[in-house]
């Protein structure tokens, strides 16, 4: 059972501050229940030391990452948590099934599942924040391959370092997409100093004309 942000799901469906009509609301409730029945949320994380061998270059467990955005996100960090999370294959099946007969349901499943994986990642993130707190460390906002100039190809490295296929059934396709679809991999910086401003994924992204921007 994942408590997700309903307004987030509505935003993915194109609603901005408008409430859905009764028919859509009914579908939203029904689809959310359907998803809760089939999802198997699982996650894995691991802490690694972080090195900054050069400007805008990072090194995690021997993986070199060239990214201005990530380097800025991880400024002053000594370690990182790598994390991966997935809702499992059940959500994919439900979306595929609806796509064949009722697209209106498919888009709602899709939006609700997106809000659910987001909420689940937040849960994992909270747990990691508490864990870090025990060591007197502060977590930076979660940052995923594909955000800004953090190459999406690094999904593969994160998957390998966390052994995600075996541990949580999360795989990476040849073109670096995650399968099951409703999955996330991310880097979370650990620093001895708190960061005053918590910029999250959307605000950090360069694509300012995106229809889904918050």
């Amino acid at each position, binding site marked *: 059972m994942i408590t997700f942000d309903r307004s987030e799901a509505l935003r993915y469906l194109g609603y901005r501050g408008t409430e859905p009509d009764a028919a859509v609301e009914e579908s939203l409730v029904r689809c959310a229940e359907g998803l809760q029945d089939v999802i198997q949320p699982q996650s894995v994380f691991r802490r690694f030391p972080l090195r900054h061998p050069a400007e805008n270059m990072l090194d995690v467990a021997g993986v070199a990452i060239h990214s201005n955005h990530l380097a800025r996100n991880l400024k002053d960090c000594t370690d990182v948590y790598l994390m991966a999370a997935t809702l499992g294959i059940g959500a994919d099946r439900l979306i595929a099934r609806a796509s064949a007969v009722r697209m209106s349901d498919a888009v709602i499943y899709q939006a609700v599942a997106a809000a659910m994986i987001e909420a689940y990642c937040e849960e994992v993130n909270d747990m990691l924040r508490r864990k870090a707190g025990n060591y007197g460390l502060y977590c930076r906002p979660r940052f995923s391959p594909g955000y800004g100039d953090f190459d999406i190809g690094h999904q593969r490295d994160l998957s390998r370092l966390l052994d995600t296929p*075996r541990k949580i059934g999360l795989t990476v396709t040849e073109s670096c997409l995650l399968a099951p679809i409703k999955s996330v991999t991310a880097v979370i910086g650990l620093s001895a100093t708190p960061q005053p401003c918590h910029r999250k994924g959307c605000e950090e992204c360069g694509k300012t004309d995106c229809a889904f921007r918050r």
Partner: protein
Amino acid sequence: MELKERLGKEWLFFDGGTGTILQERGLAAGELPETWNLTHPEEIISLHCGYFEAGSDIVNTNTFGANALKYPHNLRRIVQAAVAHAKEARRRTGREDAYIALDIGPTGRLLQPMGDLPFERAVELFGEVVRIGAAAGADLVLIETMSDSYEAKAAVLAAKENCRLPVLATMIFDEKGKLLTGGTVDSTAAMLEGLGVDALGVNCGLGPKQMQPIIKRLTEVSSLPIIVNPNAGLPRSENGRTVFDINADEFARLMGEIAEMGVHLLGGCCGTTPEHIRKMIAACRTKSFAPAVRKHRTVVSSFSQAVEIGGKPVIIGERINPTGKSKFKAALRENNIEYILSEGMAQEDSGAHILDVNVGLPEIDEPAMMAQVVTRLQSVIALPLQIDTSSVEAMERGMRLYNGKPMINSVSGKRESMEAVFPLVKKYGGVVVGLALDENGIPYTAEGRVQIAKKIYETAAFYGIAKEDIVIDGLAMTISSDSGSALVTLETLRRIRDELGGHTILGVSNISFGLPQREIINANFFTMALQNGLSCAIINPNAESMMCSYRSFLALSGQDEQCAGFIAAYGNQQAALPASAGAVMALDESVERGLRERAAEAARDLLRTVPPLELVNNELIPALDRVGKGFEKGTVFLPQLLMSAEAAKAAFEVVKDAMRGAPQEVKGRIILATVKGDIHDIGKNIVKVLLENYGYQVIDLGKDVPPETIADTAVRENVPLVGLSALMTTTVVSMEQTIQLLRERKPDARIVVGGAVLTQEYADSIGADCYARDAMATVHYADHIFES
């Protein structure tokens, strides 16, 4: 002694963890353990020596992740070295009595259609490892830690096709007894037994304590020797290191308990060490050994469900079949797989337990269609399938790609039929329908049919197929030409059950060919057949009269505890008002509000006074346009747009039925595809629904479609407009390649693109003719192209 002769007859012990021990010895996170076969040979040999010395009878090579995806350049050396190290350890420890298992783990990729690895590619990848390992001298193949039954099937087929060694398989279940992909102990065991593995079981994921319910179930359903290789308890993180929560003594004690549950091969997985194994062997060797017992269960399975035949009668949905159905035939000709899927889903919702799949039509490539339909059906439907075809090639394609143990329809008592079908059943597994007819035709008497049934059982046994994997079709023949035929069929059912101890099946509705109001006869005959012992009924589960017979029979024959099933089906019936109870809503309003049933009803109502074309042009299209405009203005949102489209579609169907025979107007034909490498097809599917609404015929090529397929189709079908979708920057590259190929092969085709990362600029840079920011924009562009 040969391993096969010892399996299931005496205690045999596996080794323990490999990866976890190598990590202790310095293997870094993310480092591929198999590389140590080349870089740290002595470490690997000493690891194996530890297990041989501890008493393991079977030691696994360090090849868990060895495949050509991870080792494109040095796979051969990696695998050969692995087998050589195990042999060297066996020599050093003087354990020539022990066996070396070629260890095969999952590829780390998800198979199509949920992932991007084609099934046959997985078979190839595993096959390569098996060939190298067998040639290097492995004694058996151990397929382990499989969390996807489909991938496990690929691995077993690869092992069987590439070596003659014993093949053992263990799966990884969670505490609920499920695979990550949804499989259960029952469904997985049915599939693996069908594929002919020599032993099966569980490994990894859980400790011995948590595994016990899973093991118990396995001992109840499986006829094969059972393997149990748990972790050393559950993992937890300690100062950044993964440690397991039970020590060697506790592990040995719990494994001793498991040894008393009726299992046959014991060992360990993550976190276990030679010490765990030595103590385990000491605790288990003295336990009394119970050989594997045949269960004689008749079971078919899907990726997630097992259906047992022989208990409560089983309903097999007959609707996926073109015979006598013009819409279904059209769907096959137009490759409209969605139509077939919707037929499947409707039957699943109506209460079918298994779906019959027949896609035979003279003018189509049946094997290819069978492959496509089986693959698509099993990705959205959880019911087991019955592969129904007279083409042996189509049968094999379907059985091979099927994710589970299928039902097969059919074999007959004809020699030629048995020679063609039984080898396939032996290889892929399945429960096969045996028709009680042979070279001399259909016997008129029950005695004649029973004799053919005997012949089928005997011949099957010769191929190594057990009696429980056959159900006999007693053959329902119409009473309109022979009034005694139902009695012969019913007697056949009884005698198969009572004299031969077999299971039976009937295509129930055949009984009424040529009669009026066939459902009346069908439903009553169905009840009689059930009373005479029918095990499986091929019927239309959407026909309420048939399901009434079925549910009544269960309630009356003591097979519906407290009539719960009956009450669940009919208890609320009075409360549910038929859709036509209220006043008829106007068609345009029904469409705008997205009410499917109302729209269909309004269309039916309107057709009494208004000609079909007028209805479309004056009511449907304007309503759709208003919704479309609202969407563009931002007052109507995507779910409403689609609901309206679905309501309009329901009305269109009514109109089409009314115009049956009249030529259908198609505004134009459009190809849609999600490009190669991309498995996100939701955007493409939205566009498809809307284009169809606006009168276009869509050739939907699906997702992850190679450029060649798109270009070939555009040329072959002479399609003037192609729509391409891509979600990620990584797959826009294939979009560009597809556009280039289309420009070469079909220069007059226009190309419209869409998808999350695309922008006008991006679309221009890859040479598309149009960037569509949403589904309506694609409709407008199509209108523009086809109207000019």
